[in-house]
């Protein structure tokens, strides 16, 4: 099996009020240097070893997992994961 980890964040330039609130809370709690905080989503899944991960992930993200109007995504793949 291949383990796929997908990360979805708001596009640069799209206001992220959640990220802003988290950053302000961090800064108020002893982490004054924190900057550029963005809150996103993390999705993990397994796909069969013979899956075309690049194509499948792109199709899944375009169809459902990410909204291209406001979000972008990236992913990592671990090969040879036992189910």
């Amino acid at each position, binding site marked *: 099996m291949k383990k796929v980890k997908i990360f979805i964040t*708001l596009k640069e330039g*799209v206001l992220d*009020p959640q990220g802003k609130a988290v950053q302000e809370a961090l800064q108020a709690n002893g982490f004054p240097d924190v900057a550029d905080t963005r809150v996103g989503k993390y999705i993990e899944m397994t796909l069969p070893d013979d899956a075309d991960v690049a194509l499948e992930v792109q199709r899944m993200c375009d169809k459902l997992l990410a*909204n291209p*109007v406001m979000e972008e995504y990236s992913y990592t793949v671990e090969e040879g994961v036992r189910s």
Partner: protein
Amino acid sequence: MRFAVIVFPGSNCDRDMYHAVKDGLGEEADLVWYENANLADYDAILLPGGFSYGDYLRSGAIASVSDVLNQIKQKAEAGTPVLGVCNGFQILLETGLLPGAMLRNEKLKFMCHYETLVVERDDTIFTSGYEKGQQIQIPIAHGEGNYYCDDRTLEELKKNNQIVFTYKNNPNGSRDDIAGIVNETGNVLGMMPHPERAVEDLLGSSDGLAMFQSVLQHWREMYVTTS
């Protein structure tokens, strides 16, 4: 005239919508469960508010890829009026029938109160009962109603005259105060405020009723001949 109110798991304004049509407008309405739905005989489609699929992933995202949306797209292409309110608007955005997306409210708060809307167009099938520039009282109830689109889309919306309602006092950070938009052909309207909750004075406002009356009026002009 027959209205279909589409019900998803998690819809919660479906009965308000049904009541608005049945009792406010006095026309036929059915609550139509999203699975195995047959929309062929309906004259208008209403997508109600709520939290379809618990707002999992993104508001409206999972409902937007359900089978019933394929039928709704076909109806929309054929010119049938489609009205999406609140979560219904979010579903229309997610499915691509309307441009743009919804972000969390600027202040991150769920807001539930009356807003003053400005009618920007009185020449759509949904708004012919209003006058351009008229201010109407319609309640909002949402946590993710901050309408977002890129600059190019905003230009298109303006150029094609697709902005139908704006907020007088923008409550959620929506671009250009946008509260409701139509598609290019004008038969698909999405809006965050709830006209179905403002159809009788007892509810605090009856300003929403004219929207349903406009749709009925249009339908009568199209299909009812008087001898």
